[in-house]
């Protein structure tokens, strides 16, 4: 599986409702130890949202990313990008049912996924 094939792929829940597209993939360094002595990175979850622009400008905060690493940038741009990404949600990989070339089906919990602030 390639990141390029997952990124920007539409995401639907089990009832076919669109949650937007994949904007980013969350990796955690807790995999098997590599020959070089480091733990491998495992895919833990996806950020899914409706915005088309500015997914990688560095403003939309990601869980586990230290706050002071946050780009505060010119606040108007930051405000616009964060507003664009207000609908983003975090989908744990365990909720992903199937990955097809043109869409991904996820099993959404009754209350929906946690918002991606």
């Amino acid at each position, binding site marked *: *599986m*390639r*990141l*390029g*094939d997952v*990124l920007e792929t539409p995401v639907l829940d089990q009832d076919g409702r669109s949650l937007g597209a994949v*904007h*980013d*993939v*969350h*990796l*955690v*360094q*807790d*995999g*098997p130890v*590599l*020959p*070089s*002595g*480091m*733990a*491998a*990175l*495992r*895919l*833990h979850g996806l*950020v899914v949202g409706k915005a088309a622009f500015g*997914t*990688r400008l*560095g403003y939309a905060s*990601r*869980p*586990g*990313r230290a706050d002071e690493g946050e780009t505060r940038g010119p606040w108007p741009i930051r405000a616009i990008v964060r507003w664009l990404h207000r609908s983003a949600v975090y989908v744990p*990989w365990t909720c992903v049912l199937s990955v097809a*070339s043109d869409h991904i089906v996820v099993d959404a919990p009754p209350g929906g996924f946690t918002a991606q602030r």
Partner: protein
Amino acid sequence: MEDRGRSLWAALELLDRQLLDCDGTPVAKVDDLEFEEAEAEELPVLTNILFGQAALGRRFNRRLGRGVEMLRRVMVPVAEPGPARIPWGAVKAIGPHLTLSLARSDISDATRVDDWLTRHVLSHIPGSGIKPGGESQ
């Protein structure tokens, strides 16, 4: 890179970043990342960095990617299928760019086009410091 449990965002912090070799020489861009198909209940593991026109082409559209991959297989008889790869284990540090523990000369896919152009084109141009058809003087 030993900080276990560290959290990373692939598109934000890895994808399209510049790859430098152990001496800081540019190798390529991270054109794509490859994950190992996890068996049931296992989370996919990041195994390879994909780079080169085949990997980049596929991100524009699948057919273009497959076409360039076929072209690559024709030009590079020994290559296994798919785009050029660097094992993720070769990454030494992550920052504004990714630093590899390998040297650029060890990664044949990275230097192949430059070498071909050097031998067939640049060597015929005066002042390039390269003997026609050969390595540098």
